């Protein structure tokens, strides 16, 4: 199942390319937007990174479900005797993989553009923790948003308010680490991220079957 999501994506490559392009463009635009006003780019850098990741990720999440809808492939999957939880996990992992892949390019680009050292174990750990929670809720709400009338708009409307604690914790933790604070200074934020990841994964896994019930 995970294989299917990954293969489709790798064959078309369009989502990943679009996500990447979008993320890079966001970094560029922010660079221009802040360069003229902010005294230090370092002040806004963590926020810029996370906004770029979130927007690129939302793009990818939306694509991953509109593929299913256009081809009617979800009905096929639902006819198979597979656990709905497995469908969720494969969607979650596929999206985690793609957001992760785009981050592999975005984070070094961010490091260069904003002249910060983001390629460190601790920063990468925070980025992974944030991305897991993001993909966990995103994989659930993506399935709902694609069946609404204004799909492209509904995904961020549903997702972003729920992601507020994740965004605050990720931006704070990233910022503190970029300022050179040791890991113990960000323990509270890391804990919030871990709790968010666990809660959103478990709850989404449980309620996903109710979202899939009559697809389309």
């Amino acid at each position, binding site marked *: 199942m995970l294989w299917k999501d990954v293969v489709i994506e790798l064959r078309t490559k369009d989502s990943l390319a679009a996500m990447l392009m979008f993320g890079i463009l966001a970094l560029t635009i922010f660079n221009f937007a802040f360069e003229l006003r902010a005294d230090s780019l370092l002040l806004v850098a963590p926020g810029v990174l996370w906004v770029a990741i979130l927007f690129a990720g939302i793009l990818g999440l939306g694509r991953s479900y509109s593929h299913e809808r256009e081809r009617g492939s979800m009905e096929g999957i639902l006819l198979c005797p597979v656990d709905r939880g497995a469908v969720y996990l494969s969607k979650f992992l596929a999206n985690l993989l793609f957001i992760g892949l785009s981050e592999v390019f975005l984070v070094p680009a961010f490091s260069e553009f904003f002249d910060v050292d983001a390629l460190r174990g601790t920063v990468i750990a925070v980025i992974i923790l944030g991305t897991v929670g993001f993909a966990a809720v995103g994989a659930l709400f993506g399935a709902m948003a694609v*069946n*609404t009338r*204004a799909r492209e708009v509904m995904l961020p*409307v549903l997702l972003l308010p*729920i992601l507020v*604690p994740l965004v605050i914790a990720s931006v*704070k933790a990233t910022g503190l680490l970029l300022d050179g604070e040791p890991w113990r200074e960000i323990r509270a*934020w890391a804990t919030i991220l871990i709790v968010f990841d666990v809660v959103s994964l478990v709850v989404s896994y449980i*309620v996903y079957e*109710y979202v899939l019930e009559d697809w389309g």
Partner: protein
Amino acid sequence: MNTAQPKGSGPGFMGLPPARLISYIYFHPELLGLAAAVLWIVGLYLALIWAPVDLLQGEPYRIFYLHLPMALAAYLSFIVVFIGGILYLWKRKRLFDVWARSAAEVGLLFLTLVIVSGGIWGQATWGTFWAWEPRLTFTFILWLIFVAYVMLRQTVKDQEQGARYAAVLGIIGFLDMPMVFLSVYLTDRDLHPEPRELPPEVWTVTWVTFAAFMALLAYILIQRVRIEQSREELEELRASLEE
């Protein structure tokens, strides 16, 4: 809920056991409406005229008597959304969804008024309508989730599907709020007035306005649910007429 509440209850009514009392109120919501009206008139009189003026904040502090109970009523309505959502997914009775949906609509209204009334007070006391302060941020995020909930209901065509999606959003949103709370309180300092040594009158008035809001919340909810039930009955009747 406040025990001193059934004012317009009438004679021979107080001896009823609680379960009967609740069902009696449910089928006679006009009693709740009457109680709410009486409590509102009394509460407004107490809050605006009877209560002493605050030495630190002056007259604008009277907004507090509406602001706090309204916020509590809105938070309470989110609990109804959460529990209604769980019960709907579990039992699949439309009634639970109607409760959740109605609570979300009333909650959105109350939260909007909470933010506006808080802003008016803030303009007078802090000198600004809005500040990114923990309790404000928390309430605003809750408001955003309520808006998303109502929007979701309107953009899903199928009634049953919309009910399921909304229930999922209500559950995730409710579980999200403790984390929102934690993260906003770790970020900034709370600027809301500390509960100082308050004169007892303040608490009396607060309890009365709180009871008024609770009665109003219950009244609107019950009426809303009954409207939805009547609409369903009407549709059934129409369907049977067409046959």
